[in-house]
């Protein structure tokens, strides 16, 4: 079922996570080795009243915009009067995903991971070299022109905020407003995550200490440090697989354990289980920790590793020095565990460095959204590294993790911002977003007992 709209041929299509029909376009970009038919998906406005469309930019790098379709549920109100456009960038999703054969979880064996990556690079070196933020932005601009959108608004999540900020640098006139959730500023070395993760862990400690039940778990933070410091082959071999229930085929190395604990901090619901899980692990019961890692089994699904490494190696890893890594890892539970994965991967991924120039000042209205306890893009990134943006508002979700656009009143605030980007938002409702209840024991959260830290509202 094809029809012609805006001079382009589109077909009716669907994306997982959203039930309504969408319009799909195919737009050819690149030449020879880098030629790709871009997949562009539009959720048409219920009532087209001529408002600028909102383009969604996905994270990673390596995630596809089409994976963001579930976000349409939260953006229903925005979608009433605006088209929402999802462009899968080259090498991701339906635009010739560059997966390198990694379909599911990240591997636990660093060496074989690097070898597989290196082989993958050699198969398509030109394609790998060409994948970059510059290419993604140029493609996006081409899509904007092709769809005849005069000006657009951008929503970026995580690494998508970097793409959005670069688009703003290079094509300021095409842009009306920016919504940046979990911002990765142009000058910030976001692959140095140890300090940010440590800070998120400390906020978790603070909130746990303020909760009567969680405080009862004692010094779980000390337990964590001991657990990581003393992690040995015997313990690694006993760590169970959350899907099969038996010990995994490959023993879990320390860096992978630290990374899976870091990953739990992304999502407040998973983080709420960490104190109990660590408490149990320090007593020899690894089941709860394994269960938490099971919460993230499907997240690597959408990542196109080839794209991830092309962009990360050329634009981030190249500007990180050994001293940076030492300074970032110092005093953190994570150490260099996250960095090592990318560092070793980039050894077999020899793309040329693609540095950015110093950002120039910009005046588009920008809405920044941060999770207070985000382990990779903490709120201070938004506060410290974006001085060149003259008109910005910042929402900080208390106890929030990575990406908060779907939580509480945030979708409503985004809709209001897009309709009146110049006026300051009433942010009071953000404070009402709470962490989920901490896990107290094997039965789950304590429903009885005292409430910690928070006033008992209602009819008491």
């Amino acid at each position: 079922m094809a029809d012609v709209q805006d001079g382009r041929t589109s077909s009716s299509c669907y994306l997982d996570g959203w039930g309504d029909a969408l319009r799909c376009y195919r737009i050819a970009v690149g030449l020879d080795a880098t030629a790709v038919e871009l997949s562009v998906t539009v959720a048409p406005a219920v009532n087209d009243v001529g408002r600028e469309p909102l383009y969604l930019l996905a994270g990673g790098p390596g995630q596809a915009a089409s994976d963001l379709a579930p976000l349409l549920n939260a953006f229903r109100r925005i979608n009433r009067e605006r088209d929402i456009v999802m462009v899968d960038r080259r090498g991701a999703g339906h635009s010739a995903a560059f997966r390198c054969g990694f379909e599911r979880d990240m591997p636990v064996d660093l060496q074989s991971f690097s070898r597989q990556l290196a082989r993958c690079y050699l198969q398509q070196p030109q394609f790998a070299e060409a994948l970059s933020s510059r290419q993604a932005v140029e493609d996006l601009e081409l899509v904007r022109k092709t769809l005849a959108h005069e000006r657009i608004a951008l929503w970026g999540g995580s690494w998508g905020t970097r793409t959005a900020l670069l688009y703003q640098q290079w094509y300021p006139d095409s842009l009306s407003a920016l919504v940046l959730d979990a911002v990765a500023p142009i000058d910030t070395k976001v692959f140095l995550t140890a300090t940010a993760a440590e800070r998120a862990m400390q906020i978790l400690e603070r909130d746990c200490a303020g909760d009567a039940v969680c405080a009862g778990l004692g010094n779980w933070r000390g337990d964590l440090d001991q657990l990581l410091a003393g992690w040995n082959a015997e313990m690694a071999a006993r760590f169970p697989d959350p899907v099969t229930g038996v010990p995994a085929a490959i023993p879990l190395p320390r860096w992978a354990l630290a990374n899976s604990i870091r990953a739990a901090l992304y999502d407040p619901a998973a983080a709420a289980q960490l104190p109990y899980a660590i408490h149990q692990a320090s007593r020899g019961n690894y089941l709860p920790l394994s269960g938490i890692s099971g919460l993230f089994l499907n997240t690597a699904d959408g990542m196109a590793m080839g794209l991830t490494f092309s962009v990360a190696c050329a634009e981030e890893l190249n500007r990180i020095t050994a001293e940076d890594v030492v300074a970032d890892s110092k005093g953190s539970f994570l150490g260099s565990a996250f960095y090592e994965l990318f560092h070793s991967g980039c050894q077999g991924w020899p793309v040329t460095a693609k540095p950015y120039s110093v950002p120039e000042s910009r005046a588009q209205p920008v809405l920044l959204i941060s999770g207070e306890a985000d382990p990779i893009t903490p709120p201070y990134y938004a506060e410290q590294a974006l001085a060149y943006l003259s008109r910005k508002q910042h929402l900080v979700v208390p106890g929030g993790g990575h990406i908060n656009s779907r939580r509480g009143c945030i979708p409503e605030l985004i809709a209001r911002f897009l309709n009146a980007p110049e006026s300051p938002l009433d942010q009071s409702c953000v404070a009402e977003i709470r962490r989920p209840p901490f896990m107290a024991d094997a039965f789950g959260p304590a429903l009885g007992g005292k409430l910690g830290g928070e006033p008992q509202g209602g009819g008491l």
Partner: protein
Amino acid sequence: MNTVNAIFTRQMSALLRKEFLEAWRDRRALWMAICFSLLFPVLLAGSTIFFVKKHAEESTRLALLGGEQVPVLAQQLRSDSLEVVIVNEGEPRALLADGYDLVLQVAEGFVDGYRNFRAPKLYLYVDSSSTSAGRAERHLQERLGGLQQLIVSQRLSARGVAPQLLAPWQLQVRDVSTPSSRGALILAMVPGLLILTLFVASLATSVDTSAGERERLSLETLLLQPLPGWQLISAKMLAVASMGWLGALLAIAALVALMPLMPLAELGIQQATTVAGVITMGLLLLPLAMLVAVVQILLALRSQSFKDAQTQLSILQLAPVTLLMVLDMSRVELGEPLWQLMPLVGQQQWLKALLVGDSVSLPLVVAGSLVCLGLVGLFVALGARALRRESLLGAL
């Protein structure tokens, strides 16, 4: 050309003038037509606005009986749409009468039972005869379901089980409706109501021009004029149809004007009626207006008296709506081309399509309208024959 000339003879135009003048001079009939035409668009818009407002704004008051033992439960249940009040003691029935929408009673020893995995009970008291009961239960289930999922997820994690083990597959629902076709749900009754408007708006005029004129004894004078019967009936039909058509046009205009006020987008519905669509709607109702008018006049002429005519036509106006409802319920495929040749059904189908911005097949509309006009011709001929019967005047 002869026929055309005959229609525009001087006598005919004088006759037309007389009929239109009499029809439009009757203020009461005019006002009745206008009021009824505006009534249903206003009602439809009003009820939609009210429904969405109620849906979005109303919140539920829940009394958590025995809630002092489970403050975390109370805290987790609270939301913008669910107000949770912890009540130490009280009788559920009395609390429901006291302004609470729901009473959730926490069983004695709930916390112990919960900690020991004994699935303790929660009792939900609800007054299902109350209009708010369904909404209130939905509000509670939303929160309670979310909390339950969180607890199950934590319990599974605690035992090292990936929660995805509980989901052997993912069901992805794909809705093939379009934002404009979803409007058919709300606008479904509009075509029937527009057709009803035709009947109601022309009723008073058609009775007056036939049975009324007979009772005023002016019909006899009219019949003495050197005019063929078909011209007489046609003139009356046109005057009556003009009234019915005006009513329907007014209703369409009011509906289209009120649409932007209706919160359709909030229901995921696209406002898709186009200007061309509105004009088409008006035009395709014209043959039907003529058919309705001529049928009404014939029935009124056949009737015993003015009063009898009113009664008969009141019953007649229910016929189309009933017919359309029966056809709808019998799940007949009314979209079939053959059905669209049938007056009433055809117009209903076309209006339905045009309201949600779909296109209609022009040949079918023309063919259906011609069938309609053919029937008009037939009834005019029948009427002309009836006028020749003397008994017509004697009926009293």
